[in-house]
């Protein structure tokens, strides 16, 4: 009998492995192996037909740190993350509160907020090109009406990154709204009633009741926004190409440029590893945070 149970258990284990194997194999091929291979290749010099590539230790990383472009791009990406993450979360929350309130034309409001989410980033960039075009664009037409002179929003270093940031916020806020909307619908309406009877105003209710209850959603959205601040760079291809003079260049775009425009894959690999390290830290931090918050629930 015992023998039978053990046999059954082993058969189940085998089934489990077989079911998971195809996915795990593909995942290894396109995520785990390339991550390790990237690290390995980041330790070698760039080979040419004359000089084969040789082991260089962490030289490629040293080159990156010595390159002023690295610091510009890293700073840009920090600003990009530092602005897009909080601003799109705040917009998402406001949108969700409004899209959840009993207001006229609510379904129109909901779809208006959500529509940018389903557009390709490339298309979004094209739409915004129409806003940013100097002199002829919508923004300059409006400011020109008030007598301001035309501005080359995408072509000058002071405004290029900001222009890119606005498109990203426009694109992702509606997506995050959905998660807040889902969370808001699980909050019982009695809570608001109870808070009102206790004399809590709207602001107090939002701050003391709503926000803490939405915290797990906020963590989830925050992590997604963080990943997006690495990932969402498609619009650069249309709007600025990272320019002028690297003023709007972001890390992933730079990696693409190094690898596929300058064919310098060792340095691209080193940069990729740095990004993966940061993402890994984010992953660990998220698991910690989620653990902490699930204790409260």
């Amino acid at each position: 009998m015992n023998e039978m149970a053990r046999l059954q258990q082993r058969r189940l284990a085998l089934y489990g492995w077989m079911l998971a194997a195809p996915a795990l194999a593909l995942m290894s091929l396109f995520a785990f192996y390339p991550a390790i291979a990237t690290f390995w290749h980041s330790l070698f010099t760039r080979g040419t037909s004359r000089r084969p590539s040789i082991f260089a230790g962490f030289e490629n990383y040293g080159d990156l740190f010595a390159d002023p472009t690295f610091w510009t791009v890293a700073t840009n990406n920090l600003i990009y993350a530092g602005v897009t993450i909080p601003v799109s979360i705040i917009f998402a929350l406001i949108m969700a509160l409004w899209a959840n309130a009993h207001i006229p034309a609510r379904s129109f409001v909901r779809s208006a907020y959500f529509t940018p989410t389903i557009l390709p980033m490339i298309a979004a960039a094209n739409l915004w090109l129409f806003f940013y075009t100097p002199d002829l664009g919508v923004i300059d037409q409006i400011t020109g009406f008030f007598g301001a002179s035309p501005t080359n929003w995408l072509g000058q270093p002071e405004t290029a990154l900001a222009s890119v940031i606005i498109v990203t916020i426009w694109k992702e806020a509606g997506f995050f709204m959905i998660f807040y909307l889902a969370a808001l619908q699980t909050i019982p309406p009695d809570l608001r009633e109870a808070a009102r009877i206790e004399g809590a105003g709207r602001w107090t209710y939002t701050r003391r009741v709503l926000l803490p209850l939405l915290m797990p959603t906020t963590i989830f959205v925050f992590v997604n926004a963080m990943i997006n601040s690495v990932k969402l760079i498609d619009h650069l291809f249309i709007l600025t190409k990272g320019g002028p003079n690297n003023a709007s260049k972001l890390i992933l775009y730079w990696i693409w440029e190094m690898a596929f425009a300058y064919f310098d894959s060792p340095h691209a690999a080193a940069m990729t590893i740095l990004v993966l390290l940061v993402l890994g830290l984010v992953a660990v931090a998220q698991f910690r945070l989620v653990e902490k918050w699930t204790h409260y629930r």
Partner: protein
Amino acid sequence: MNNAMTAVSNKRTLPDFDKVLDTLGAWVLAIVWISPLLFAAWAALQPSGTALGLDFSSPLTFENFTYVWGAVPWGGYFANTVILVTLILAGQLVLCTLAGFAFARFEFKGRDTLFILVLLQLFILPEVLIVENYAIISKLGLFDTALGIGLPYMASAFGIFLLRQAFKSVPIELEEAARIEGCSWMGVLWKVYMPAAKPVYLAYALVSIATHWNNFLWPLIVTNSPDTRPLTVGLSLFGAPETGVDISVISAATIMTIAPLLMAFLIFQRQFIQAFLRAGIR
């Protein structure tokens, strides 16, 4: 009692101040949020070259659309995108269902470690590994093929995670009942678990379609011919400012490429948002 009644009726006749503000704010933000789309739609209907002045008296024209349609093989790009999205979704559904089932209902050695590895993949983005994945796809001889674009996305950690959660929430009694009736493991999966996870499948499918319809960087890297290039890459080549195409034409091309997805969204938006809300992707 009487007082309470008057208070209620007061509330009805006088809409309270907060609500008016909320409505106004919500509407203004909504209009701001779709204005880029509206402007583009309007620009696309202006004669090219003359456009852009916010002069609403000029006549509307469809010539931009006919010009754009003739200039680039959009029909092929559409077909490529549809094939690509279908291929990826099919692969994801099969692989993630099997793996999600394994992680939800089977005990095997190393399962928890493997699951953590799967979760880790949520952070190792395929987008970041472009350099190495490009080398792998080339070595496999899949460069410039639909499979080459799709393969790295098929074992989706997000999909595995979602389906595992969905399968775990199915009461085990349902499974036992089916097994007493003689169902095999695959039968149980097919007849009990997959139907129970329907809303999750719907939500996941919609997210996957939207993601891969819109994906750009990876397809840009692994395609180099009109026979495989998806819409986004085609649009980016067409819209590049250095080609000197003017904004009405770019707007027409943009509107044309997003129209199918936009219409699908407007038709299915209730299901889409409901799917998200119900499946509880949180």
